[in-house]
């Protein structure tokens, strides 16, 4: 803050300190002297109506007083009137100082030293002073008071510095009339009465042929600087942060131009905002993660000048989200060797990459895939699902069983208590019975871990067909060790076989 304030002050000083001024020297367009002869007291002499007032250039201008010779009355009060055409001052100018210069001399010098001063004047028609204007003045002092003693040379201008009130009084669109008077006259303090004395102060009037001796109004003024057509510099150090999902925080450094006003910003080539000259960042929110966004800017000054150079930058915000939860399913979990299983990714929270392990030293990075198992056994299946926010493993133990699937014998039979035909060439036969069906099964693995099961379909003409490979885990009720309770059935069958063979 301190640094900013310091810079502002420095810029102000630099600007103001280099303000330049013009000078205008104006000679009056009208001048004359205002003369009164009220005869009477000092107050009457000052304020009363005169009988011999007039404006004429036949005399030098005067600002004086005299006392009557015989009647011991104040007589004749003269004042110098000056009208300056101040329309030449530009309307947008600021008057910084002014002075009125007059050349003159003091005549008679009998009443004593006193001061002269300029006051306001309101003639009816400044372009043509008339005798009726004699009482149209004010006592407002518009200059310093100058002692009459300084007027010792007719060839030298003596300057009355105008005060701040006068600077406001000067009319930039018309005339500025001033009146030169004695300070006695202004503050209504009677001079020491000296019977029969004269005191006149003469000045050169405007019609003096020597222009260097004419009265003048000298004005110093400043004008607004010419229209600024120079745009401010561009912003610098444009950068962005996408640390927060779906947001971009742009930041930059503003130009140091004193008249820099705002930054014109586009968002993807569409107007976004005008940012103030103190703004150095812009937070864009609720964006789409992974999509490009372009910040484009131009700078503009207080008068509307735009720097046509674009300052652009593109950034991509991250998406907001969660770590995946990995999962999958398979279209079959028990297959024969060299068969395939289709694995379907069912992970949630939008993973973006996958890593499969199939337990047979093979892997894959596909999302969904078909895998061929060419070895038998149980296989652990694992899936790692990953996205921008993390990863997750799903491990399924012994998820896939791959069997050698040895082909069954050539015939299938069924058990019929009245007409039994059984191929007993294989030692792997076993008569079984579940709760609903009599049948036999053919062992295709060790310990009856898997087997074919010959079932009797309950049709009008029973046809023995080979059923599917039975998984002991699901068919435990017909495993041999569960058939002990049916020993008598076995014995019966064996007996029947023996009988048939003997028969």
């Amino acid at each position, binding site marked *: 803050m301190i640094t900013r304030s310091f810079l502002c002050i420095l810029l102000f000083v630099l600007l103001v300190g280099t*303000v*330049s*001024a*013009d*000078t*205008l*020297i*104006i*000679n009056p367009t009208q001048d004359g002297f205002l003369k009164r002869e009220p005869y009477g007291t000092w107050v009457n002499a000052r304020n009363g109506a005169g009988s011999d007032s007039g404006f004429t250039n036949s*005399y*030098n201008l*005067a600002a004086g007083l*005299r*006392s*009557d*010779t*015989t009647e011991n009355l104040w007589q004749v009060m003269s004042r110098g009137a000056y009208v300056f*055409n101040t329309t*030449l001052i530009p309307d947008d100018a600021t008057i910084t100082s002014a*002075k009125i*210069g007059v050349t003159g001399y003091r*005549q*008679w010098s*009998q009443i004593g030293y006193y001061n002269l001063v300029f006051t306001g004047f309101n003639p009816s028609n400044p372009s043509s002073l008339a005798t009726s204007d004699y009482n149209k003045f004010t006592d407002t002092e518009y200059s310093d008071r100058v002692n009459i003693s300084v007027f010792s040379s007719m060839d030298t*201008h003596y*300057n009355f510095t105008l005060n701040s009130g006068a600077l406001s009084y000067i009319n930039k669109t018309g005339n500025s009339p001033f009146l030169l008077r004695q300070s006695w006259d202004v503050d209504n303090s009677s001079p020491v009465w000296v019977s*029969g*004395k*004269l005191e*006149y102060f003469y000045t050169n009037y405007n019609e003096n*042929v*020597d*222009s*260097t*001796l004419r009265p003048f109004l*000298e004005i*110093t003024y*400043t*004008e*607004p*600087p*010419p229209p600024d057509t120079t745009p401010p510099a561009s912003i610098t150090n444009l950068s962005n942060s996408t640390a927060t999902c779906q947001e971009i925080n742009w930041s930059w450094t503003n130009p140091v131009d004193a008249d820099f006003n705002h930054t014109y910003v586009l968002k993807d080539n569409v107007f976004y905002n005008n940012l103030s000259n103190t703004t150095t960042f812009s937070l864009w929110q609720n964006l789409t993660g992974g999509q490009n966004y372009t910040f484009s800017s131009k700078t503009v000054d207080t008068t509307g000048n735009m720097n046509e150079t674009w300052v652009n930058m593109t950034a991509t915000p991250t998406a907001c989200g969660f770590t995946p939860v990995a999962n999958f399913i398979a279209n079959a979990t028990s297959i024969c060797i060299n068969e395939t299983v289709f694995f379907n990714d069912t992970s949630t929270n939008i993973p973006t990459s996958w890593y499969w392990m199939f337990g047979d030293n093979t892997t894959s990075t596909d999302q969904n895939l078909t895998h061929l198992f060419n070895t038998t056994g149980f296989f652990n299946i694992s899936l790692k699902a990953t996205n921008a926010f993390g990863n997750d493993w799903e491990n399924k133990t012994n998820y896939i069983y791959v069997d050698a699937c040895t082909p069954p014998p050539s015939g299938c039979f069924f058990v019929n208590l009245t007409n039994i035909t059984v191929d007993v060439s294989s030692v792997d036969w076993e008569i079984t019975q579940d709760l609903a069906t009599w049948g036999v099964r053919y062992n295709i693995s060790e310990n009856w871990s898997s087997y074919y099961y010959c079932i009797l379909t309950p049709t009008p003409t029973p046809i023995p067909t080979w059923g599917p490979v039975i998984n002991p885990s699901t068919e435990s009720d017909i495993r041999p060790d569960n058939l002990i309770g049916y020993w008598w059935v076995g014995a019966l069958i064996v007996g029947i076989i023996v009988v048939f063979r003997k028969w």
Partner: protein
Amino acid sequence: MRKLAAILLIFCLTLPLVFAADVEDLLGPEEEKEIPTRYIYFGATPIKDALTAKSQAPETILKQATDTTMKKEEYPYTIEKTEIKIIKFRCDDKMGICGYWVEATRGGREVQTNSPIWISPPPYEVVISEVYDSKVNENVVTIKEDPKLAVERVLQGYVDRQPLGEATVGTKE
């Protein structure tokens, strides 16, 4: 007797002095009387003639006369016998005045001028002599039309009134 004679002598000798001292009072406050002035022009007076003829507005006549005269100079130039240098000038048709860009020093030190210095109305006359003719009790003033010299005198008066300091130049050319 000798004493009386001395007193009378002193009285007689001082009487004129007394009269001399009181003459103003005795005469009383006289009406202000100006010595008549007669103006004589030296050389041609085309500007005065044009103003008299009123063929154009006075400010136009004076501006054109000044413009024509000042254009004959090669800028910058130093006003003779001064430390004032006129850098350039420009007349404004709309305002009917001319402005001057000056640089000035006083005793070698910079004068705080505020250029341009516009002069209204453009001066064109200068008094080249002023003689009192006691025989006819009148002032005889000889005038010459010389816009360049008139401008230079006004600028000189301006510079003389300015304090020492850094000069400034207005923003509008």
